């Protein structure tokens, strides 16, 4: 519809305006198209991705990363948290890609999802920060790290923990290694292992339960 309007406007202007003004308008239209084009390109890629076009899908996701970062910044997300927002947004886009209507703005659709994920990340950090207050108190009460006996004890505890992890079933071991030892996010671990984030969560939960039972004898 906008293309039809532009064409009509151009025809009317061509017959009425002097040449130099027409040239000026032509430049303005070109500039307008240049601004508009990336969004239309992304919309077309996403429409093709909905039909199963993998190449178009990878292109639109890659093109979306900068938009997601901008949306996260607008919500006040710190730089260190932006990667998490990008990953969570990409995963959400994957799950809800059928809700995109190609006749509407792709950027508005994506930015709304990214803004929601940014707010989720900020809330999650807020909750974590609140819990970590107690860790600071624990740090004050921690025994001297340079104590040789304490160091040996820590090494033995670490070895026992590694041995216990090694005895876990493969799925649980993988979840502990990815999420606990390598400190990867759910999205990263999911991408690396090819497992659903839900399955990773369940495996981690089961592994923690098994390790707790082994060390403390409590379920």
């Amino acid at each position, binding site marked *: 519809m906008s293309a039809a309007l532009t064409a009509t406007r151009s025809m009317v202007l061509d017959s009425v305006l002097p040449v130099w003004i027409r040239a000026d308008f032509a430049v303005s239209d070109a500039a307008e198209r240049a601004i508009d084009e990336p969004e239309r390109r992304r919309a077309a890629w996403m429409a093709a*991705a*909905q*039909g*199963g076009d*993998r190449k178009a*899908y*990878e292109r639109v*996701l*890659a093109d979306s*990363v900068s938009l997601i970062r901008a949306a996260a910044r607008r919500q006040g997300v710190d730089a260190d948290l932006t*990667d998490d927002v*990008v*990953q969570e947004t*990409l*995963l*959400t886009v*994957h*799950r*809800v*890609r*059928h*809700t*995109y*209507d190609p006749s*509407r*703005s792709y950027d*508005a*659709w*994506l*930015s*709304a*999802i990214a803004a*929601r994920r940014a707010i*989720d990340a900020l809330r999650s950090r807020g909750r974590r920060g609140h819990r970590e207050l107690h860790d600071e108190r624990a740090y004050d009460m921690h025994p001297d790290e340079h104590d040789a006996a304490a160091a040996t004890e820590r090494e033995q505890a670490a070895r026992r923990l590694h041995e216990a992890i090694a005895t876990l079933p493969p799925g649980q071991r993988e979840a502990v290694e990815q999420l606990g030892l390598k400190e990867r996010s759910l*999205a*990263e671990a*999911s*991408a*690396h292992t*090819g497992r659903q984030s839900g399955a990773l969560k369940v495996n981690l939960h089961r592994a923690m339960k098994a390790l707790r039972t082994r060390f403390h004898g409590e379920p």
Partner: protein
Amino acid sequence: MSESRLPESLIQSLGVQLTPVRRLPPPWLRTIGWLVLVAAIAAGLLWHYGAEHMIRRWVAEPDIAVAGIGALITAVSAAWVAFTLGVPGRSAQWAWLPLPGLLLWVGASGLGCLRHVVMPGSTVATAHQSGDCLMFIISLSIPLSALLVWLLRRACPLRPVLTAVMIGLASAAASAALLEICHGFAVAVTDLITHAIAVGIVVLVNALMGGRLLQPALK
């Protein structure tokens, strides 16, 4: 370096998992789908009670007909807004759309309250009969709300509570409009309060439960 590599590996992994998807039908089409059930219930009530009594009441007390039309406009607009809010990127300002219908509904019902003062001969509902209205609106709102939630199962409402409020409003308004087919009394203050309580309960329950039910895509 790692900043760009992480989304890249995730994008590739999402590309591998890509399958064609069926697009979400537009909000107006899903609204019609829901209204088909409302129309089927209306047809059932008309078949049981007949249209004669309803038309006679409407001719004698036109404000009841206006209140019924207001309730119907509220139901249709709130249902459409619920479906619209299920698409990321659509403005939350659409939530104001049911307001004119709501004002017409409440205003005309309020005028009806004055009727028994102006026309002392009108049949006014007793507290017991008003209780029946309450049960009618609540019990009919349950399947209507359930159908709306089901129709929204593939959607992605980024404001789940607001969407759930719209579901509650649409269901309660549709139930109140259907009640007009078999409503045997002039609208008195007790009756109006009962209707308001019923609508309030339906909207509140939806807001409390629907917010959770509508979020599977975001988990």
